[in-house]
């Protein structure tokens, strides 16, 4: 990390460039150095509950660019003022850039000491040895499977080793505009909970000229809505050993058909743009939006209109909610400094213990006892999401899974935009994804 902070002196730069080997040195960045300690991972001896070693500075990277970043910054500065011998420097990147920058930084030895990742990115980065196994750290923190929802706990494991320490669960919920409900003669305290109520509400709004459930053709949030519906209709994204995409099953087709029917029957406008479903919810043109928990802080602050928050309605037979989880990971560093690992373990422990504070940024704590604590239950708006956690599904822990998921998002895009019917869009996307899965298996093993 230090190398990143110290600006290369001009003379140093000219020296490096002058030796034409600079070019070769650049080329060598992509070299095949076998990472030290790959496989074993660092060991934390400090039990994670305290850090008594010499002063260390930890570089902490994450992708919290929104309001969540402000909460994280507050927590980090609180940590820094409470812990004299550990200083955490936080760097924030766009998530989209994060997974390009961090692997590159880690490979060149300039990676952070500690980072946050989504649960579905962990296997890929673990396979690529961007992050290291942290069973020892998890043990020293006395993390216990019983403290977490099953899916959150399992998602941090890749090939029988733990790589991620769960911080939170963030999932989809039903955001609805109470003012629009009133306008349509509906009870604003009774959001729809099943298909019949959902359709009845839409019908009531349609009679008042309101298109009540805008369907986005994009990953946010159409693609997430599709996955939730897929599970509700009894479908699965992939087969058991994740060798084939199965979203073109009956359940999958029913799920996407439900969405395209909303468009076809006039409950949603055609051609909804990126985020337009959410913007329209806030300005009263849309009423029911399957939206991410990360928007809760924004809608509860609105003064122009009242947005209600509820669990996703059960359109299918089962509960099913798309979700993801932030997890702490330890990036591979060139020489593993035991003090840094211990300090990192202490920071992780401190942060997760305080994750009821973190929840205020619009997340459900991953630790179940915290999710049930009065500290968390007193936070406005998040309770429906916490109740959904048993129904939350995560993508399977397979390296390169997002490559295959992209095909599914493309299918949703094509069908919702009326370019292709749900069944054939899903089928060709599933074929493509199965091909990708086979190639990934060869690549990542």
């Amino acid at each position, binding site marked *: 990390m230090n190398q990143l902070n110290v600006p290369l002196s001009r003379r140093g730069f000219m020296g490096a*460039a*002058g030796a*034409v080997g*600079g*070019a*070769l040195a*650049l*080329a060598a*960045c*992509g070299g*095949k150095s*076998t990472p030290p300690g790959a496989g074993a991972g660092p060991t934390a001896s400090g039990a994670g509950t305290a850090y008594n070693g010499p002063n260390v500075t930890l570089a902490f990277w994450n992708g919290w660019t929104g309001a969540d970043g402000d909460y994280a910054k507050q927590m980090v500065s609180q940590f820094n003022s409470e812990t004299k011998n550990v200083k955490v420097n936080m760097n924030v990147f766009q998530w989209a850039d994060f*997974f*390009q920058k961090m*692997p590159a930084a880690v*490979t060149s030895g300039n990676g952070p000491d500690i980072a946050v990742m989504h649960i579905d990115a962990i296997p*890929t980065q673990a*396979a*690529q*040895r*961007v992050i290291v196994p942290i069973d020892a750290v998890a043990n020293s923190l006395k993390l216990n499977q019983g403290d977490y929802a099953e899916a959150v706990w399992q998602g941090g494991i890749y090939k029988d080793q733990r790589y991620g320490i769960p911080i939170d669960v963030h999932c989809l919920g039903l955001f609805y505009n109470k003012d629009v409900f009133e306008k349509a003669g509906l009870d604003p305290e009774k959001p729809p909970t099943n298909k019949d109520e959902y359709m009845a509400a839409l019908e009531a709004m349609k009679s008042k000229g309101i298109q009540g459930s*805008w369907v986005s*053709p*994009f990953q946010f949030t159409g693609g997430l809505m599709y996955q939730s519906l897929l599970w509700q209709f009894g479908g699965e994204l992939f087969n058991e050993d994740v060798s084939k995409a199965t979203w073109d099953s009956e359940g999958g087709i029913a799920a996407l058909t439900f969405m395209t029917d909303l468009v076809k029957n006039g409950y949603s*406008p*055609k*051609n*909804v*743009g*990126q985020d*337009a479903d959410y*913007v*329209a919810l806030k*300005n009263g*043109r849309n009423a029911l939006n399957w939206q991410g928990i990360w928007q809760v802080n924004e809608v509860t602050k609105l003064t122009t209109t009242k947005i209600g928050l509820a669990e996703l309605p059960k359109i299918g037979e089962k509960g099913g909610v798309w979700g993801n989880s932030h997890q702490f990971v330890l990036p591979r560093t060139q020489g593993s400094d035991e003090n840094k690992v211990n300090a990192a373990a202490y920071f992780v422990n401190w942060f997760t213990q305080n994750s009821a504070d973190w929840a205020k940024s619009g997340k459900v704590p991953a630790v179940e006892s915290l999710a049930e604590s009065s500290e968390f239950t007193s936070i406005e708006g998040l309770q429906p999401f916490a109740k959904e956690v048993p129904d939350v599904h995560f993508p399977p822990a397979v390296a*390169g899974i*997002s*490559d295959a998921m*992209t095909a599914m998002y*493309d299918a949703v*895009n*094509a069908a919702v*935009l009326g*370019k*292709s019917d749900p069944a054939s869009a899903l089928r060709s996307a599933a074929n*493509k994804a199965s*091909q*990708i899965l086979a*190639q990934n298996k060869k*690549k*990542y093993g």
Partner: protein
Amino acid sequence: MTSTTEATAVERPPARSTGRRRRRSGWATPYLFLAPYGVLFIGFILAPAIYGIWISLHDYNYLLPNQPWAGLNNYFDLFKSGSRDGADFWRSIRATAIFTVFSVPLLVVIPLAIAMLLNRKFPGRTFFRAVFFTPYVLGVAVVGVLFRFLLDPTIGMLNFYLEKLGFAGDYPWTTQVPWAWVGLVGMTVWWTLGFNAIIYLAGLQDISPELYEAAEVDGATAWDKFRNVTLPGLRPVLLFVLTLTLLASANMFGQSYLITKGAPENSTRTAIYYISQVGLQQYRQGVAAAMSYILALMLILISLLNFRLFREKEES
């Protein structure tokens, strides 16, 4: 005058006497002048380019311990039907071509017209020059977010005003073709025309006013003057603008990425967009490098053709 001749005369003999030595020491001079550029060129362009070819011959992922040799398979696969990337890649090349074909003529012609207007003397000229150039200084992220909401089919301002004017008002500017192309080309023209206009403006000011005066004396109309004085005078500038705009348009990425996300069905996903997805998000640098080389080859050919066309015109 005399003193100068004397001075040179005096200086000459010693110059002659050391001529040999000076020539020998001068041997390295041009190379020394070239060295800084050469080092940067070799280090940052040539070497990475050659290394890129090496990458394209492997099943490359710089994060994995092994980079299996793939030979020319990365290239062949792009031409094979049913391969993972073939259809998507050519579709993205097609998107790039469509964008280039529609944006380049506009970006060559409109800025020229604007430059000619701004070259006249009128009050507030500097202000208008600034107005046309200002969008260019904005980053693509800013312009992208701005236009995403201006063009949005359901909540966008453009459709809102079109409806007020009595049009349908539900044109899918960001989600369906060909409307998406109109949106993307339109915003790009608005955003970047200032740069070309400034280049033209500089070129116009290089044309000698005497030529216009002479043409006027001969009774030339405004059109005659444009055809016979302005255009020939601008030829090198035109070539520069055309080549630069072609390459810039062929490298379009941010606009699609931010505004359409490639919708519908990835038909507005450009080549660079797709290459970045494959190389940076899917960590398949080998395939991405192979695609880049095919794209680069196509651009080199087009640029050569471009130069050839202009040269022939000059010769005739």
